């Protein structure tokens, strides 16, 4: 095992060396860093050219210049000694990268995690309802999302998600056609998702249409969009919904102890919502993290105290429920700060450019909302295009597993469908996905060139593209190095994870 990992790492190092040499030569012929001076007629032209030549060692031929760069890059093995050269403006590339990486991670990590969770869920449901209207609908939309150019989606989102939505927020009146339309769409979606006999479909359609349209009308009529909030009632209702949902998935509703421990957690959460209000008003990030951990711990404890022979299930259910209820409480508190934030940004909350409002210093909640309003559109754009592949992969994987003999055996010995799907099929369907997920996470640092550009995020992709347009070699190489290393490492991790998850696959050692 160790020898396998070492050998893989050695080979990866050689590949990286080869690729970086190739990329360095490509960068060298992709532009001329002196071009801007050649065309200028400034008096000190010669001197500027000499300066830049000295800065970038342009007097050395590119194949040899690579080794100068490499000797600097090789020092990165020792922390703090890194020398990736300077940008044309004289900034250290390492400094530029260390400010770009967090921005990129904020943007891409959220979108990737959401895409994985939502994509896999949709994929599993379509696999369980193969050849249903829902399956066909989802297939069509995944192909559609596959086919969308991201810059096109991003510009559309900017127009309709930000500019028009902000206009709407200035005067939040929901017109009647919109209410009817949203109601019909929600009815249609739920009727198709839940399925069943025609009678059941019609019933689902009617209920979902009335509820969907009604909620929207109510929110519009009560000025909710201007002064949003959940309030204790909505937290309780949503919390109970979450508790029942998680219990159904993980333990089955007939496991009363699990259900009760989840419900008790919801009650505790609502109590905490009032008890902790003064504390939450002065929240900081560490405090939120501590509170979150405490919430999960409390849930687990409730589950343990409920006891029973399978107390582990109760612990799992209550812990998860507690996590979501805590998130609800946080969301509620954040919504309270929303009107103040809207006043701060002069009534146009959803941002179209940048990763944060410049020079904004306020409490935790305002800053949190600020992050959210800046991230929501680029995240949506990225989510939309990466959702499709996860849906397709997980659908195919789940279909494959559901056809296996052990699933038939599980059914034959009388296990409930929930156990068959969640415990026997779902877990095994995740194995091939692990590789793809690891691979995608490895590519995270590469950023999202186009999305970052459209939304003016100063991340890795933007650094790369700016380097290309300014014909500035060092930042390009810096981004390439970071991306290349993470890609190679996560590729290795993907292989190791696969062999750890699936005992039939052995690594050659």
């Amino acid at each position, binding site marked *: 095992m160790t020898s396998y990992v070492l050998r893989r790492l050695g080979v990866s190092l050689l590949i990286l060396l080869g690729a970086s040499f190739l990329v360095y030569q490509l960068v060298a012929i*992709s532009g001329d860093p002196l071009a801007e001076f050649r065309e200028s007629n400034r008096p000190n032209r010669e001197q500027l050219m000499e300066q830049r030549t000295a800065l970038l060692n342009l007097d050395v031929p590119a194949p040899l210049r690579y080794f100068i760069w490499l000797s600097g890059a090789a020092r990165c093995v020792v922390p703090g000694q890194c020398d990736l050269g300077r940008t044309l403006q004289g900034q250290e590339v390492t400094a530029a990268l260390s400010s770009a990486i967090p921005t990129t991670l904020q943007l891409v990590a959220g979108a990737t995690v959401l895409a994985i969770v939502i994509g896999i869920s949709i994929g599993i449901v379509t696999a369980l309802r193969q050849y249903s209207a829902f399956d066909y609908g989802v297939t069509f939309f995944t192909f559609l999302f596959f086919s*969308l150019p991201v810059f096109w989606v991003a510009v559309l989102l900017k127009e309709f998600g930000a500019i028009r939505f902000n206009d709407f927020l200035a005067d939040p009146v929901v017109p009647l056609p919109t209410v009817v339309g949203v109601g019909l769409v929600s009815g249609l979606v739920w009727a198709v998702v839940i399925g069943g006999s025609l009678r059941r479909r019609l019933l689902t359609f009617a209920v979902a249409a009335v509820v969907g349209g009604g909620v929207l009308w109510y929110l519009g009529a009560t000025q909710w969009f201007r002064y949003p909030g959940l309030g204790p009632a909505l937290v309780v209702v949503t919390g109970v919904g979450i508790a029942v949902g998680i219990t159904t998935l993980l333990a089955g509703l007939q496991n009363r102890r699990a259900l009760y421990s989840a419900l008790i957690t919801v009650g505790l959460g609502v109590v905490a919502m009032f008890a902790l209000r003064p504390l939450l008003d002065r929240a900081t990030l560490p405090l939120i993290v501590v509170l979150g951990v405490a919430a999960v711990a409390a849930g687990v404890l409730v589950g343990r105290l409920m006891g029973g022979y399978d107390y582990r299930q109760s612990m799992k259910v209550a812990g998860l429920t507690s996590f979501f209820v805590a998130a609800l409480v946080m969301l509620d508190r954040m919504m309270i700060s929303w009107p103040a934030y809207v006043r701060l940004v002069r009534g146009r909350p959803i941002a179209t450019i940048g990763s944060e409002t410049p020079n904004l210093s306020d409490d935790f909640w305002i800053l949190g909302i600020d992050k959210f309003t800046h991230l929501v559109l680029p995240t949506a754009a990225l989510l939309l295009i990466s959702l*499709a592949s996860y849906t397709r992969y997980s659908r195919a994987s789940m279909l494959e597993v559901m056809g296996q003999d052990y699933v038939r055996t599980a059914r034959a010995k009388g296990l409930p469908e929930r156990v068959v799907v969640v415990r026997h099929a779902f877990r095994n369907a995740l194995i091939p996905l692990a590789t793809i997920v690891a691979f995608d996470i490895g590519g995270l640092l590469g950023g999202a060139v186009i999305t970052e550009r459209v939304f003016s995020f100063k991340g890795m992709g933007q650094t790369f593209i700016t380097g290309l347009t300014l014909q500035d070699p060092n930042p390009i190489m810096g981004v390439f190095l970071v991306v290349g290393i993470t890609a190679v490492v996560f590729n290795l991790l993907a292989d190791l994870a696969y062999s750890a998850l699936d005992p039939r696959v052995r690594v050659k050692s």
Partner: protein
Amino acid sequence: MSTTQQDTAPDDSREVPEDLKGLSQGALVRKRFLGHTGAIVSLVVLTLVVLLAITSVGLGPWHGWWQYRWTQTPVLMDGGRPTLQLFPFSLGEHPFGQDSVGRDYFAMTMRGTQISLAVTAMVGLISALIGVVIGAFSGYFRGWLETVLMRFTDMVIIVPVLLVGAVIAYNAGGGVLILGVLLGLTTWTGMARLVRGDFLTLREREFVDAARLAGASDRRIIFKHILPNAVGVITVNATLLMSSAILLETSLSYLGFGITPPDTSLGRLISDNQAAFSTRPWLFWFPGMFIVIICLCINFIGDGLRDAFDPRQRKISTRRVRETVPAAGAVVAGAAPYGRFEGTAARPDGPSDGDVGPSDGTGA
């Protein structure tokens, strides 16, 4: 089950059902593909788009039937608003409107479609060719050749496609030919890996041993015996490659590293006009719609091809089994609730590699 049915059963069984007749592999694939509604509709739509793009503004010296060229600047009419009417259908003077200097946007969109399609087709062909050759050689010969070729593939995977685009833009000025060739030279990696995997399993099969014993040369075994068996994987992946190639081309053009003026492409049109979204939204809608239509069609065709080539996709109709084998009817009917889980796809859909997907990264 009544006795009359029992009596007629032997007569029925003598008549072999249509789909059990001895059909060649190619005929089976064609039959399944023609049965895939989405793929057929997409094929028709794509053909229409290609025909429209080529005949309207013509190719080379031929000017086509449309009255304007994409370079002409007629007088700006009605603020350049599109004159296209669907009910009753009429094209009008400028169906897709005019851009800010008055150029006919229909002609420009058609020219952009031509260019984007040409680049797509070239990228698909070239990268499929390279990928198949490298994958086939490394999968068939194994040994040091495989190691060298696969490590080379790993190396090319982490070279950012954007950089290649920038190199082209700086040195060659973004012609169709050079763009297609160079993008083809960088996007073959996924295909090579897939073909290698297929060859690794196929070369251990009995028919390869038989061919070798009969004295067939390596070249003959690769091209006559193994390659036809891998054609499904190759076709499907090439289609998906093309659908991602069109997005890649438009993205590159959008970033300014693709097709350069005076020529245009769909991505370039959007890039040039994105600032005008609030004043002239049609400049933004039409090229985008064409990208989506083309890409969607290619994806559906790929899906249809996958269904046609993958025998595991074949649905077993319980009704037919019950009709032809009356005695087994009860058993099959009992299994029917689980019938929907049979005949499932094994190969995950979608592009198989990070760098050819509709990805938004630097291609690494």
